[in-house]
């Protein structure tokens, strides 16, 4: 097992006592998988990702990446945030190199590595641009290049396309699938967009809300991944099943509250 999450619990301390955000999360992810965790707001999906990234520590349970226990953030796990987090004073090239610079990689090596990944994400022409000169989709591609340069074992993505318009989003989906096939990287992405999850992943964890738990695990087997697959019944069955599940849990959560 590559990315392993074992009986993970996370409580937040509030003035009314502990609030259970994540309850007994178990996940097993193999190398090279594209996994989406789908959940409505309140399902704790961002909190889960922060635990994997090591930005926050679980109340109990543990996370291991390639057999190594996660105790803090590190370059073996790349991350792309929903908000644009490129360094605004650095060019796209400098942003992409920055992780390697922090790790003490010699200038020449890191320049070549960054150029390679800028080419992969199709931003070679914009390598000298400042982030504010890029469109939303280009910013996220630059952020992906920045996360990939240090060749992380797993790429974590926190609703990376949530702020993009539908057309940019679709082209980013195709870009991600292409990138995934070419680099064979393990991707763990969270989203509330069911269609996005079905289209991208080979396996989905559906999360229920308050507290966040895994309600269903679902393998996605689609013959192809093109926009036209979205019109086929197999795709729609997956989507409807997940939508029904989330709707049901949404009503339960409302009734409980």
């Amino acid at each position, binding site marked *: 097992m590559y990315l392993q999450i074992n009986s993970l619990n996370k409580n937040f301390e509030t003035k009314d006592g502990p609030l259970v955000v994540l309850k007994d999360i178990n996940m097993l992810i193999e190398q090279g998988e594209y996994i989406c965790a789908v959940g409505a707001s309140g399902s704790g999906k961002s909190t889960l990702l922060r635990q994997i*990234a*090591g*930005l926050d520590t679980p109340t109990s349970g543990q996370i291991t990446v390639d057999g190594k226990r996660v105790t*803090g*953030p*590190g*370059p073996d*796990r*790349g*991350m792309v*945030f929903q*908000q644009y*987090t490129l*360094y*605004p*004073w650095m060019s796209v090239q400098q942003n992409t190199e*920055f*992780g390697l*610079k*922090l*790790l003490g990689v010699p200038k020449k090596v890191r320049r070549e590595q960054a150029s390679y990944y800028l080419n992969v994400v199709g931003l070679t022409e914009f390598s000298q641009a*400042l*982030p*504010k000169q890029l469109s939303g989709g280009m910013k996220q591609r630059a952020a992906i290049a*920045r*996360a990939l340069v*240090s060749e992380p074992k797993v790429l974590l993505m926190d609703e990376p396309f949530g702020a993009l318009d539908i057309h940019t989003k679709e082209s980013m989906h195709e870009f991600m699938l292409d990138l995934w096939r070419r680099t064979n990287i393990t991707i763990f992405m969270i989203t509330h967009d069911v269609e996005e999850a079905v289209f991208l992943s080979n396996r989905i964890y559906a999360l229920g809300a308050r507290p966040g738990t895994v309600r269903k695990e679902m393998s996605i087997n689609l013959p192809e991944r093109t926009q036209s697959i979205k019109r086929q019944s197999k795709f729609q069955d997956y989507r409807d099943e997940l939508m029904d599940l989330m709707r049901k849990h949404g009503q339960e959560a409302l009734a409980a509250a």
Partner: protein
Amino acid sequence: MTESPQSIRAFIRPKTLNPTVFWRLAEDIPKPLNTTLIVMSVGVPLLLWWLVTTVGNIDPKFLPTPAKVLVAFGRLWSTRELLKDTVASLWRVGVGFLLAAILSIPVGVLMGSFPSIRALLEPLFGLMRYMPAPAFIPLLILYLGIGEEPKITLIFIGVFFFNSLMVMDTVKFVPKDLIESTYILGGDRIQSLFQVIFPYVLPGILDACRINLAAAWQLVIVSELIAANEGLGRRISVAGRFLRTDEIFVGLIVIGVIGLSFDLLFQYLLRVSCKWASQQR
């Protein structure tokens, strides 16, 4: 909700937003209008000054004509007195402000970055900030005499605490995502401080320095009004004693012009060194 949606319309006054040029809110105005208004901003008061002193029957000891002030400027310039005074004031501000900036920038960055250091220093600095620097003059004369030291110390006191707290505030607003991204890329805390937080807040630091340089410039004049052998403040106070109103005006205008030049210089520095931030402020 039993009323139909149409019924509310009877109560609504017809209202539209009329087009305007002069009263545009947070929008650019046409360039010619902009230039005209800028010229008027200085030109109209100058013209009024000239009109009042030429047409009106005003004692020149009370308000000299612009021409007389210009003559006084020429006189003070040719005897090199004005230059000597300006250099003296600039030197005091330069030393006092640089010392204060060199110390307050790292202190402010540390206070903004580390809650521990903030807790240690913020209460003291917050208190010191509310003690007006000129109120320290008697103490400074008592401790340091009437030479250069009390004047430079006064500027230091007036700038250091304000600048530290303002720099701290800019550091507090560094997006947490940016720091977390750095940790994920493999950065440690020192790298995050020097390679992420510092460049991010540099425009804010320059802006804080710009504002506090104005304060330093005021303080040097205040300190010279009280006790000095030379300086622009001294020039004004001597001119006042001998009722040379034209020289008072020369002093005031020179002080204003130098202050404005500092401001423009800092704005230029900010534009050149931090191109990435140019649209944010």
